């Protein structure tokens, strides 16, 4: 296959960026999208041109480090992570636009790399259960209904890639936030901090410059882990309850 990629190039966070076009020959349909960029980068290096900077680490769809907007869609045409997207999803002669996540909460560092540290700060604001090492009772002390455990797991599979934010017209990170609120809120161990968690995390979410959720649902359409929109309803319920119960935060 021969394809053309038009890539966002921006040397650093202060510089202006622009789209630059590159022709890539000898693309195999079995290559991953990032391997196609690797091949392009090898060529750019030989030609003395700065290779395209992009994030990736595990390249098996679980670490959440990769993620670019491909032809206007977060992670591209298949609902998976960018590293798991393969070139068989494209056709010979395609022109493919590649851009970084664009959101107020995710400033660009270089080319396709953005700063997602806001997600860590949202977790710091309550996305945990206080269980100091060594203080735990036996694992079987509290049975958890299988259905609750399974639903908690489904929400806990969020990889914090940020596609939900990139896809949202409001630049909202509510699906990410709700996934953690749902995971911990469904488990008996998560109950004592349930109110303070949702209040703290939502406040931090807003402080980071992410927009509000208006239930558009673009986030779930691109989420590589299939986190359901229902998690946001659950967050809203928890939030209203916590606000109604008053000042536990």
């Amino acid at each position, binding site marked *: 296959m021969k394809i053309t990629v038009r890539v966002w190039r921006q*040397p650093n966070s202060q510089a202006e960026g622009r789209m630059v076009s590159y022709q890539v020959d000898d693309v*195999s349909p079995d290559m991953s999208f990032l*391997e196609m960029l*690797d091949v392009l980068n090898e060529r750019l290096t030989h030609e003395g041109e700065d*290779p395209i900077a992009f994030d990736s*680490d595990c*390249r098996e769809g679980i670490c959440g480090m990769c993620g670019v907007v491909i032809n206007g869609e977060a992670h591209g045409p298949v609902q998976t992570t960018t590293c798991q997207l393969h070139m068989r999803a494209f056709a010979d002669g395609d022109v493919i636009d590649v851009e970084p996540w664009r959101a107020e909460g995710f400033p660009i560092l270089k080319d396709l790399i953005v700063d997602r540290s806001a997600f860590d700060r949202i977790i710091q604001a309550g996305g945990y259960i206080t269980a100091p090492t060594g203080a735990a009772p036996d694992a079987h002390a509290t049975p958890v209904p299988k259905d609750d455990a399974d639903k908690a797991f489904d929400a806990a599979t969020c990889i*914090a890639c940020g596609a939900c934010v990139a896809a949202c017209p409001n630049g909202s990170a509510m699906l990410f936030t709700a996934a953690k609120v749902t995971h911990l809120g469904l488990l008996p*161990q998560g109950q004592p901090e349930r109110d303070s968690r949702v209040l703290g995390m939502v406040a931090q979410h807003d402080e980071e410059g992410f927009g509000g959720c208006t239930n558009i649902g673009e986030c779930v359409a691109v989420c590589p882990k299939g986190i359901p929109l229902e998690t946001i309803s659950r967050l809203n319920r928890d939030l209203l309850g916590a606000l109604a119960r008053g000042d536990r935060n």
Partner: protein
Amino acid sequence: MTDPQAPSLGVDANALYVEGDPIADTKAPDGPIDDKWQRRIFSARLVNPANRRKLSVIVIGTGLAGASAAATLGESGMHVKSFCYQDSPRRAHSIAAQGGINAAKNYRNDGDSVYRLFYDTVKGGDYRSREDNVYRLSQVSTQIIDQCVAQGVPFAREYGGLLDNRSFGGVQVSRTFYARGQTGQQLLLGAYQALERQIAAGTVTMYTRHEMQELIVVDGRARGVIVRNMVTGELETHFADAVVLASGGYGNVFYLSTNAMGSNVTAAWRAHRKGALMANPCYTQIHPTCIPVSGDYQSKLTLMSESLRNDGRIWVPKRAEDAELDPRDIPEEDRDYYLERIYPSFGNLVPRDIASRAAKYVCDEGRGVGPKVGDFRRGVYLDFSDALSRMTQAQIAAKYGNLFDMYERITGESPYEVPMRIYPAVHYVMGGLWVDYDLQSTIPGLYVAGEANFSDHGANRLGASALMQGLADGYFVLPNTIGDYLADGPFESIDESHPAAVEARQSVQARIDRLLSINGERTVDSIHRELGLIMWEYCGMERNEEGLRKAIGLIRELRTEFWTNVKVLGSNEELNQALERAGRVADFLELGELMCIDALHRRESCGGHFRSESQTEDGEALRNDDEFAYVAAWEFGGGDQPGDVGKPVLHKEDLVYKFIELKQRSYK
């Protein structure tokens, strides 16, 4: 020091290494094995809560071991500085572990116990691990599950609400706890959340996109690190009373592995160059169930959890000429379920090293399947059709859904319809920095946890034991032993003008300047890939004297090529991914040689280290306990210049088996 008694190595002037003094003491308490750990906890000096606030610890890496250690030390009141090269601590590669975590809970009532987990781990490691450490690991395993459940890790449960278990390779009990096929992810997020809680509490300061470049040793103690801010390029100097390396394994020396793209040896290798011994570096685990290579552009290999071997059956055609047929058209009588045939009692659940080599042999015989890579087809079938007739597709999906989906995304084939194709790939390294019972390296104040140390898995790690060890080290072992060292602290206050810090920083700067100034013809990746091919060919699943000698020569040539002909564009003062990779590959090029020397000197087969000269009549690994029942701990023998590795010095730690009888492993 004397030259080793190894005539076949053609020693004298050309000796590849020299032998130094043996290691006399691992600092494990004497006496009965079942209360050694309790006695060590009691004998370790404590630091009172008020004084803990005056102490500081640097932790490199935020995988299971690093994140759990940083969080736990932070909870105790110490000041912790935590570093990771990724954009968030949650990305560390522990997250990719799929199958599960072992614990001797005996919730199944199937005869499990701490002693049995201990026994299985020592046996699985082919009698090349330290009994005391493994016993402690087994003891601590039960606490890990309790801790993780309390944190909200959503383990798989049964309808009664209690935890589910599965069985794993190399054992006959069900002691593996799991969270679908994403156990590593869920355990890491538990540790990550505990870490973030401490960051919010102010006990831990987090530095993301920072990579360790050098260790600072002052008056014989590890006192700090030089790190590079990967966004600005700034070299930063950080000091503490102790340094913990939890920087993971070095499987990427093979270029293609199941490790993350950024996984590297630099932190450990820099410590090694400063005096920390590197133990058993040749012990590499080749995982039997990975997706086969599809082309030259391949950047990494993807694991399919070995839990799949519980329900999948491995086979190849009996006849090489059937290799191109649709596997569904090959009748039962023309299939060779070779693991079930050769190992009737363990069948598809034999340990990883045995399963891997068996796959290599059937492919070497020409009976492999899938596309040809070179002259051979490198793949075997992992077939779920029996399981699919026994269980519904929904039941299979509940157990393996994400793995099946991942396989289909990568290969374009659905395992519900066509058997998977799998082949072994480098997955884990049992070798690592040498540590004593307290997890302290040979540099006082430098502790090593998780895959970065060598301590628990001997020559082969059993499935679901890496997560167990990482969390055991980070949550329970290290926090109980490091206090004994820190009881002498806080140590003398030092700043960036200290000669040791200046020297460390200048050496890092000089190395970076040199990498940027070569401006040759070869990209970093092309050299890394070439190194990987050398390692895989000569220091992979099967090794021999001739190949290893050849590999050492090739690596030396390649290292020269790297330092004279690599091309790294751009500057240090920017986000420069090629420069990051160049620094890592430079260290892999030194490590690769040591791995080959270690493999060459160990003229026996054990676990993942298979020397073709040392095998039984059946082609199984043949140990030589009389000569090699020891840990090979290597001291750096080279100079300051990049690439100058000199002659390493071998220190032997004898492995004494007081509780388990050494036997030839048999899984038949």
